[in-house]
C-alpha cells in the first residue's frame, strides 16, 4: 500500500504532466528509491494510482535496464563494456570483480552485499574504463580502486 506521504509525492509528480501516465517513469524511480526494487505489489499500486493496467506497468518495468525486480546488493557495480571502455581494459575489470566476489554478471552475493552488472555505454567514455558504483560514476578503473570500494562495504 502506498503511504499518504508517498501519495502526496506522486500527486506533485503527476501535476507536472498533461497526462497522468507520463509520470510513470519518475514514479517508478521514486518507488525504487524507497524500496530498492519494484515488487509486483508496487506495480499494482502504481497502476491503480495512475489508472492504467498492471500489465502495462510491468511491461515498462521489464523494458528499462534501471528498474530492478530483485533486490540488488548494498554495493552494486555496473561496469560499462562498450567500445571506449573495452579498448581501455573493461574486460579485465569485469573479470576481476567476478573473480574476487565469485559473481557472474547479473548476480548478487548470498549475503546481499554485492551485485555485479555489465552495462552498455554510460556516457562517460573519457574516463574509461568506467562504472556506476550504486549511483556514482567511478572512472579510470583499476583493481586497486575496486579493492577499496569492496573494503569499504565489508
Amino acid at each position, binding site marked *: 500500500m502506498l503511504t499518504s506521504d508517498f501519495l502526496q509525492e506522486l500527486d506533485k509528480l503527476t501535476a507536472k504532466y*498533461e497526462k497522468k501516465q507520463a509520470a510513470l517513469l519518475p514514479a517508478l524511480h521514486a518507488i525504487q528509491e524507497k524500496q530498492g526494487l519494484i515488487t509486483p505489489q508496487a506495480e499494482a499500486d502504481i497502476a491503480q494510482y495512475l489508472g492504467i493496467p498492471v500489465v502495462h506497468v510491468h511491461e515498462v518495468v521489464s523494458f528499462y535496464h534501471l528498474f530492478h525486480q530483485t533486490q540488488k546488493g548494498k554495493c552494486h557495480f555496473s561496469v560499462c563494456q562498450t567500445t571506449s571502455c573495452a579498448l581501455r581494459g573493461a574486460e579485465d575489470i569485469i573479470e576481476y570483480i567476478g573473480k574476487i566476489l565469485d559473481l557472474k554478471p547479473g548476480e548478487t552475493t548470498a549475503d546481499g552485499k554485492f551485485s555485479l552488472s555489465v552495462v552498455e555505454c554510460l556516457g562517460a567514455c573519457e574516463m574509461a574504463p568506467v562504472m556506476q558504483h550504486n549511483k556514482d560514476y567511478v572512472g579510470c578503473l583499476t583493481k586497486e580502486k575496486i579493492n577499496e570500494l569492496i573494503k569499504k562495504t565489508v
Partner: protein
Amino acid sequence: MEKVITRNFGKANSHRLEVYLQNKGYEAARRAITQMTPVQVIDEIKKSNLRGLGGAGFPTGNKWGFIPKANPKPKYLVINGDEGEPGTFKDRYILEQDPHALLEGIIVTCYAIGSHKAYVYIRGEYVKSLQTLQGVVDEAYKQGFLGKGIMGTTFDIDVVVHPGAGAYICGEETALLESLEGKKGFPRLKPPFPAVAGLFGCPTVINNVETVTCVPPIILNGAEWFAKLGSGKNGGNRIFCVSGHVNKPGIYELPNGTTLREIIYEHAGGIPNGRKLKAVIPGGISAPVLTADEIDVKMDFDSLKAIGSMAGSGGIIVMDETTDMVWAAMIVARFFAQESCGQCTPCREGSGWVYRNIKKLYHGTARPHDLANLPGIVNNIGGNTICAFGDAVMMSVGSYVSKFRSEFEHKIKERVCQI
C-alpha cells in the same frame, strides 16, 4: 579559438545563475522575446546553418519551421538528453557545467515555435545532471526566468525535467516521446512526423541538448557570425568527444570542418606509447569506421557523408594498431544486440545473429559460411525497420567487415589450420 558552447565551462560555480548572468546571460532570450518576431528568430537560425547535433544533422531552423501555426493544440519542445550513443558525453558537460545556457536556449526555441512547455529528457544514469538541472530550473522559477510572464514580458513557459530509465533506443526521437508518455520505448512509424503529431499527439519539436545550447549565441552575435565559424552548410562549432586510445581523452569544442587528424593528434594528444593509428569511429558507434588513411577528412556532416561515414553525435573513438578489428566489430555488434528494442523482427533477430556470428569468428569456432553470410544479414536489417537503429547496424557492422576483411578471413584460416 573562440569558445561558444563551452564558454563558461571551468569557471567556479559555472552552473549558478549569478555566474551565468555575468556573461550576457539571458540577454538573447530578452532580445528574442522583446525585439524579434518568432518568424525572425526562425529565419535567423535557418541562416546560421545550425544543424542537429544529436546525430542526424538536420537543419534546425527548417525543423522549427515545420510546426503548423494554425493548429490549435498546444505545442511542445522536447530536449533530447538521452545521450546513449557510445562515444558521446558532451551533453553531460553542458547539463552540469552550463545548464542555464540550455535553459536560455529552451526559452528562445519555445518562443520561436509558439510553445509554452518544454520537457528535458535526461538518461536515468545521469543522476548528477538531473539534480543539477532540477536545481537550476527551480532557481530560474524563483528568479522569474521561468513561469508566468518571464523577465517582465508577457511570455509564459514551463520546463519539466524528466528522467529516462536506461534504454539506448529512447534516444531515437519517437521512442523518446513514447517513453516520456510513460510507455516502453518503441519507435513510432512516421508519418505522422512529430512536428504534426508528437508528444500527447500535439505538434512537437525534438532537439538535442547541444543544438539548443547553440541558439542564444546566434541570437546575440548574428547568423552570419555563427555560419562563418563552421564550414559550408555546417554552421558553428561543435563539441567533439574523444575517447579510446588517445593520450588526452575528453571534450574539445572546435569548428565544424576541423580535420580528424588535427583532433586526434593536436587536441587529444595523439596515441599512447608511440603506437600507430589503426581505425577511428568518427561520430558515435553507429558511424561506419574509418581506416588510418582516411583521417584527413573534415569533421562535418557533409564531408563525412561524402566518404561513406557520418558525423553523428560527435563521438570519436580511436583504436591503435594493437586492436583486433574482429574483436572491435564483436563489441559493436554486441551493443546493438543488447539494445535492439525488439519491435521489428529484422532488427531483433538480425542483431543477435550478427553478434553470434562475429563472436564465433573471434573465438575461432566459425565456418566459412558464417563470414560469407554476414553482409547478407546486415543488409537485410538496414532499410527494413521502423527506425534508423537497423540502418546503424548495417552501416557500422558492415563497415568493419568490408574495411578489415582480411582480419575476418584470417580468423577462418587460423581455425582451418588448427584442425
